[in-house]
């Protein structure tokens, strides 16, 4: 029996169309728009002005708080303006526009392709490099990694978990990374272990990526403190709480952080970014993005400079399909629909999924037939039908009592509802209201 989390879960059609496509480097764009807020927390403060000449990897916006991250230029060229631009949320967000000229890299970056497996730095120096490089969780949550790696006072990590689950349908960027950058990833894991001061790491990978599992096992066999844990294919296994439960059996208490059970989780792309930052002096300014969709001519995995518009990726993958009705930034379960193709690729962009018109709209909502499928698929053991009802009726204290704040917004309830009810939409509303109430109570 393969390990997995116990409560709930669904298994959507995997549709990993680009799983066999090797990572390709996307040609440089003509211009980029690099937002200064690409992470959870305070946006970075831009330190360049119109007319400035920048190099690849140069710091252009500085971390502005405890939870914040540096932003580096992904191209060389001239800053044309520093103002608002398109964002996935639909609200304009501040960022730096750069016209690309040549491809001049910061001299400090080691551009050689050779593996550098020798770890010379101590924990403090590794953490400093990670912080300088502006690394955030690349799975989509974009929480600054250096913050995660320093446990709060009185808490200690004893195991590092690497999230190689990629449970979202369609997405394959982490899968390709595990196949093509295995050696670097193992070094990245060792760096993270050293930074965290733990002597055990486990890489959780779902069993639909057997090639990646065997490749990593073959590469990591010398490191007895790094184990590979194949997991049963089940969404949302990539959720932090679910992954920790699946791999270690530890259950995080309601409202607590992973560190409360001694675990720290980072995803595959983040681990690779840590390797590059520490061993190659390379800040985070490019990432692998899956561009995919059933009607897309050529679903692909591209290595993309941050700030490139998603339109460039779509064109490189064969152009926007005629019947495209929806473009999703991220996976189809948790990603966000975007309005246009001007949106830039940011640190959190793991994939661009194009849905045909026939799948873009939801079905007609019917009355709840109380089938309880939403309850049985909820990975947090909640009752989505009830949370929706109390949110709809604005009974916020009951919503809090029924643990609306525990919802991880994985979407399993809405996905599974035979009556097409907008369960998660209302639960999000409830979470927002209850969260605000809790904050006012604290003040």
């Amino acid at each position: 029996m393969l390990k997995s989390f116990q409560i709930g879960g669904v298994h959507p059609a995997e549709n990993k169309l680009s799983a066999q496509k090797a990572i390709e480097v996307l040609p440089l764009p003509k211009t980029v728009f690099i937002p200064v807020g690409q992470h959870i927390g305070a946006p970075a403060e831009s330190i360049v002005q119109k007319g400035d000449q920048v190099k690849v990897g140069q710091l252009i916006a500085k971390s502005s708080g405890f939870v914040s991250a540096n932003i580096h230029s992904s191209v060389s060229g001239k800053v044309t303006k520093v103002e608002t631009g398109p964002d996935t949320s639909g609200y304009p967000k501040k960022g730096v526009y750069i016209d690309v000229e040549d491809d001049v890299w910061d001299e400090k970056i080691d551009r050689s392709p050779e593996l550098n497996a020798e770890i010379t730095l101590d924990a403090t120096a590794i953490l400093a490099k990670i912080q300088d490089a502006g690394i955030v969780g690349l799975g989509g949550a974009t929480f600054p990694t250096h913050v995660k790696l320093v446990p709060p006072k009185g808490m200690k990590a004893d195991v590092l978990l690497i999230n190689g689950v990629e449970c979202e349908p369609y997405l394959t960027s982490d899968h390709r990374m595990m196949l093509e950058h295995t050696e670097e990833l193992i070094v990245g894991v060792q760096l993270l272990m050293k930074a965290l001061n733990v002597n055990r790491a486990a890489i959780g990978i779902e069993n639909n990526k057997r090639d990646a599992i065997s490749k990593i096992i073959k590469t990591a066999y010398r490191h007895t403190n790094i184990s590979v844990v194949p997991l049963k294919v089940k969404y949302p296994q990539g959720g932090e709480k679910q992954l920790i439960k699946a791999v270690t059996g530890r259950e995080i208490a309601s409202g607590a952080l992973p560190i409360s059970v001694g675990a720290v989780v980072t995803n595959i792309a983040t681990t690779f970014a840590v390797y590059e930052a520490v061993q190659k002096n390379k800040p985070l300014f490019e990432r692998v993005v899956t561009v995919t969709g059933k009607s897309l001519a050529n679903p692909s995995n591209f290595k993309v400079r941050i700030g490139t518009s998603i339109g460039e990726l779509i064109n490189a993958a064969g152009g926007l399909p005629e019947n495209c009705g929806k473009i999703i930034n991220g996976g189809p379960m948790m990603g966000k629909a975007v309005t246009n193709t001007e949106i830039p690729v940011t640190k959190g962009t793991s994939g661009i999924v194009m849905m045909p018109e026939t799948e873009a709209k939801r079905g007609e909502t019917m009355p709840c037939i109380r089938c309880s499928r939403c309850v049985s698929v909820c990975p947090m053991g909640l009752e989505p039908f009830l949370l929706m009802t109390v949110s709809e009726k604005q009974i916020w204290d009951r919503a809090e009592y029924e643990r609306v704040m525990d919802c991880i917004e994985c979407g399993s309830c809405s996905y599974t509802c035979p009556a097409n009810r907008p369960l998660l939409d209302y639960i999000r509303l409830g979470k927002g209201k209850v969260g605000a109430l809790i904050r006012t109570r604290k003040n």
Partner: protein
Amino acid sequence: MNKLFTISPSPHIHSGDSVNKIMYGVILALAPAFAWSVMMFGLDSVRVTLVAVAACMVFELLIQKFILNVKPQIADGSAALTGVLLAFNVPASIPSWMLIVGALVAIGIAKMPYGGLGNNPFNPALVGRVFMLISFPVQMTSWPAIGTSGVDAVTTATPLAILKEGVKNGQPVVEIFKNLPTNMDLFLGNMSGSLGEISVAALLIGGIFMLVRKIITWHIPVSVLVSAVVFSGIFWLIDPAKNADPIFHLMTGGLILGAFFMATDMVTSPMNAKAQLIFGAGIGVLTILIRVWGAYPEGVSFAILIMNALVPLFNRFVKPKRFGEVKTQTIKG
């Protein structure tokens, strides 16, 4: 690029499951039992089923169109399913007009006044059936013997009725059993009873179909059957001379039909696995209590309706196992 894209919150994909698929799936699962009833009771089975389905759908249509003034939703299959289940719970010889009255009660009293699909507290088909049982006690308890139908029908008693009558007259159970069908006959359905309840084998095929297609989960049927077997087994062990064995209870009087098709009605059953297990156990125990001590030989309908009444309490007080209901274990550093 001037194309407009759809914007909606996640998730952006759907399982493809629908209310219609569930309803028609259940109806399909009832097909083997229907086929068996046609073999046993002839065209009467077809008449009763068609009349019940048509009456339920027409009443729902009329109520939605002329009383509630809403867009008719009878294509969702729920009214049709109520009709089929009502038909399966009455003798094949029932006059059509009585069935129409039953359908009116099921849809017009038990379902639509509460707000229609999804809102009724009691199983509509069972409310219709119990109303008919009380209103037309003679017609509702004279069953055609198997293999006879129409004007030639010979009425007979069901195994449970024979048992109840015998025990009342002080006959030892061993003697009564000489007049009853063998276990194999009970399993296949060579006995008399309501139209759709007689063949355990045909109903099990449908039940397994629903489990495989994930239309229902195992919790309710298994807890109903296990608790009925255990509870009737206790009576049997205490006094085998007065009580029938658990196998007999399991295979007679619509327990299988009730466990797989009536108790599992989504609208009127609890909404998490833990509560469903308690709900099912309650149905099993009440069924046997009514059969052993009650005035009626048969108890499944009443047991389910009584437990239906408790469902809001289950939903309020029996909660699913939450993730994170653990003590915070801090690893001190």
